[in-house]
């Protein structure tokens, strides 16, 4: 009983240490980080946080993410919900094959689908012009599969 508790505490410490270390580093200046090794921040500074929230090159990333996530969630819910309903309630021609095909998209390495989008600009027209939308579609197929899995009650 005792051994179990000690093991569990050690494991949770292992989980928290890297996160703690990131927090520790984030509260120190560059010179301080490289200058001395210390288990806790000796001179706490919030300069790093001020920088990421005031410098556009940092915070525009967050804004892009938020826009992307909103579009993605909307699109994937719109197409995934009716499909998940159909898969869980009805039997129809080719339902198992279709479901498996959608599942393979969840499993497929994103790198496999990357090639058509990474060719030299000068060559010829890219496959699609609406690149952002396409990525959303890619991710929404992922979302869809998750939703469908839940509905089917695996």
């Amino acid at each position, binding site marked *: 009983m005792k051994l179990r508790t000690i093991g569990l505490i050690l494991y949770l410490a292992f989980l928290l240490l890297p996160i703690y270390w990131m927090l520790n580093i984030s509260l120190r200046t560059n010179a301080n980080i490289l200058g001395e090794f210390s288990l806790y921040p000796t001179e706490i500074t919030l300069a790093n946080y001020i920088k990421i929230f005031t410098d556009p090159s940092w915070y525009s990333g967050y804004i892009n993410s938020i826009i992307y996530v909103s579009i993605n969630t909307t699109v994937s819910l719109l197409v995934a919900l009716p499909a998940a309903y159909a898969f869980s309630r009805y039997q129809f021609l080719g339902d198992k094959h279709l479901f498996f095909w*959608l599942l393979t998209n969840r499993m497929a390495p994103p790198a496999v689908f990357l090639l058509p989008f990474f060719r030299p600009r000068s060559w010829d027209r890219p*496959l699609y012009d609406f690149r952002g939308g396409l990525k959303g579609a890619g991710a929404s197929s992922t979302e869809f599969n998750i939703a469908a899995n839940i509905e089917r009650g695996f």
Partner: protein
Amino acid sequence: MNKMTNQKAWFLVLPVVILVAFSALIPLMTVVNYSVQDIFGPGQRVFVGMEWFKEILSDSRLHDSLWRQFLFSGLVLLIEIPLGVLIALAMPTRGWGVSACLVLLALPLLIPWNVIGTIWIIFTRPDIGLFGVTVNSLGLAFDHTARSLDAWVTVMLMEVWHWTPLVVLLAYAGLRAIPEAYYQAAQIDSASRWATFRYIQLPKMRGVLTIAVLLRFMDSFLIYAEPFVLTGGGPGNATTFLSIHLVKIAVGQFDLGPAAAFSLIYFLIILLFSWLFYQVLQHAGRGEQS
């Protein structure tokens, strides 16, 4: 649950089919197109048939990264599944400890994958990282940017840190679903701790553990972002897994033909495993109902 046969259900599925056709089917066919052509530039292409496939299949770097990938996925399963089950068994069953453990376990799963790589760079760097400095001060030389064994250890540690909580959560859910009566029966028979685990807990966890094994295998087989950020596939090619290798030849060298052939072979391997995954899940589901 008995399902009604209704062909009109196709209309409900149609939107997602069209969307996925654009996002997956057309790019995939483009990859097929590339894989049988030699492309020099705009409008200059020659049909070369199976040439790229022959070249890729006899490429020793691909063989290396394939074996490396299997070794990695195998080690992931060997470490994460037993560790996950052990932790799930050690977790408290009631009281405030349950929610505390669950929250802590969920933390690594919520962090974006490339941030995981960054966290582990900071954590293991030999000059400023807690792990790197500690190991070095114990007298063991450790530098994941220079020595391939160290890079492997670091990537494995990161992977175990990142994904074992998922196995724990699944195993814990499986354990909590066992009715109290089973334990009472075991107590009446004065079964040992091991016998209780072997004949009650393990069989009852079969379903969730199957899902855990398959999910962990598939995801570790596709691993890209974390080792890419942490080691960039290096030192040398020591931690170049399949996805990293593919991106190296596709984007780094613009070898469209070979990269496309590689993509298709990779996709077929994944397709095979997905099919096995699907079959096993279907059987696991059926086994539990009957």
